[in-house]
């Protein structure tokens, strides 16, 4: 539980390269990225990406830069998000549960 973070919800075109455009933006603009969740939506033509980022004065700039990306069709900021999702990922990573 941490209210210094927010989650950015992105709706993006689902094709190879979209993820590198998004992570590339974070590198290029020297933004921090604390976590990523990603998956296909519906027919697979679009995907949903959740980015866990620090809530600071750069957030506004991050949002505006994400909105400019060609393959990004929607950007939403969720201040009130389910912390469990990212906490569970951290647990998953630590526990090696993905390995069968």
């Amino acid at each position, binding site marked *: 539980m941490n209210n210094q973070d927010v989650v950015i919800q992105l709706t993006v075109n689902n094709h190879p*390269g979209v993820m590198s455009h998004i992570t590339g933006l974070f590198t290029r603009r020297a933004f921090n990225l604390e976590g990523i969740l990603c998956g296909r939506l519906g027919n697979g033509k679009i995907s949903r990406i959740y980015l866990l980022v620090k809530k600071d004065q750069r957030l*506004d*700039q991050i949002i505006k*830069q994400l909105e*400019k990306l*060609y393959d990004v*069709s929607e950007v939403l900021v969720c201040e009130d998000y389910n912390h469990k999702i990212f906490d569970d990922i951290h647990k998953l990573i630590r526990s090696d549960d993905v390995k069968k």
Partner: protein
Amino acid sequence: MQYTGGEIIVKLLENEGITKVCGIPGGANLPLYDALSKSDKIEHILARHEQGGGFIAQGIARATGKVGVCLATSGPGVTNLLTAIADAKLDSVPLVAITGQVSSSFLGTDAFQEVDTCGLAIPITKHNFFVRSVEELLHIIPEAFRVAESGRPGPVLVDIPRDVQMAKMEVLEWPKKKENSPLIENKKIEPVNMEDIAKIAEVINRAKRPILYIGGGILQANAHEELYKFAKKNNIPVASTLMGLGSYPSDDDLYLGMLGMHGAPHTNIILNETDLLIALGVRFDDRATGNITKFCPNATVIHVDIDPAELNKNKIAQYTLAGDLKEVLEKLFPLLSADDRQNWIDEITKIKNENPLYMPRKKGFYHPLNFIKEVGDMLDPETIITTDVGQHQMWVAQAYPFKKPRKLLTSGGLGTMGFGLPVAIGAALANPDKKVICISGDGSFLMNIQELATLAELNLNITVIILNNGCLGMVRQQQELFFNKNYVASKFKSNPDFASIANAFGVKGYDFTNVKEANELLRGILSTSAPSVINVPIDDRENVLPIVPPGAANYQMIGGKIIE
């Protein structure tokens, strides 16, 4: 009818109205070149290095405002092109780069001349496309043009594997040239809100000491006439960034000159006094603002730009508006009150007279500022000037009398040495009726000197003037001022004979070393239309002044007042 991928690309370029493309062929784009040879609408300009090719395309784009197109093969063709693409990104130049890629079956195998083109292009393009099938071309090529020219323009790269260029498909109907495609519709600029306009007009009308701070956005929006009417009606003085030079006539009373690191002393002092900064088509770049926390400390800020991400990026503005500048200025104009602002104008006149830009009249013809002024007086305002990067670039910005937009083509954001000659070639190709002058330095000119071969081949109306001080002058200057005169790696121990080199390339070369009546000789050379290169010796101790030291506020410039 059946078309190959290459033929489809060429046809789609024709549909975009493209008449010139520039580049170099190689293994991975040969199918495209084969198709290009059959076009009677598109002329191919063969560069001698892909970076030169990219900059020639940029020259076409910067001089016209329309998309420039360049081609390169995979691997080194792409990596050579990257500098020109990054340069286009930072100065918002519409460019479409079409690159060949190894065939799909070889992708990811480290095949000969394979490089991750899209991966390399991500941080330096507005967008990039990888074409997976011949069918996708019909959508992607027109889309690339829309992205490059819409909103804030920028470079777009399209990477096309060799097999996609060779694959055939039946095309019954060609896509129509659309203003906006569905995919980029959600990036559309919102129409300007009249409430915002009214609020901004009121703030301007109320202000006592307003200043217009203008940049490249004015010429991108083609809003220079609206700007002139706007400034004149309310008598607001105009300071310009490097990229904005020419958007406001330099001989007008309201014009303050360039601001920033090498701006005129009075310009930076006046900006320190303003109570309302009206920032139009600018991005508060560090070379323009100096120490941003000390930039216009007493001013309310209005910021208008087509790119919403520029608003509140470097400097918090009290009034922001994302929109097309031409439209914004048109809508503001009727709400603006006519005002002579006599007190403010009087104060500015006083500051101007007390803090003029250093013009060393006594130092004669070969002082770079005098020389550039002299060149400016000999040429008509339609002449296009390109520069390289360094001291000569700043001297041009300070002394050349620009009166019209798109007459100074210079690398502002990336600051790329080697920019001047190929961009001059592109500008001349797009303006066969105009003279183009490339003002360069001996350091910069060597960085794309191979394009003299392209120039000789095309026989364009270009004169290159090399202000030759035998060193990397801007580096030397900063070493003198900020590194205790420790001149490391800035002095050339040997330098070529530039006039002879030009002659060897088939371009007329002149050397002004030991020439006394240079004024008449220069006039004679500039009155001809054959390509030429002039080597002009200058004193290597000359500095660009004033200069704002790193981290300082603009008003804390060094060399504001010089005693001759």
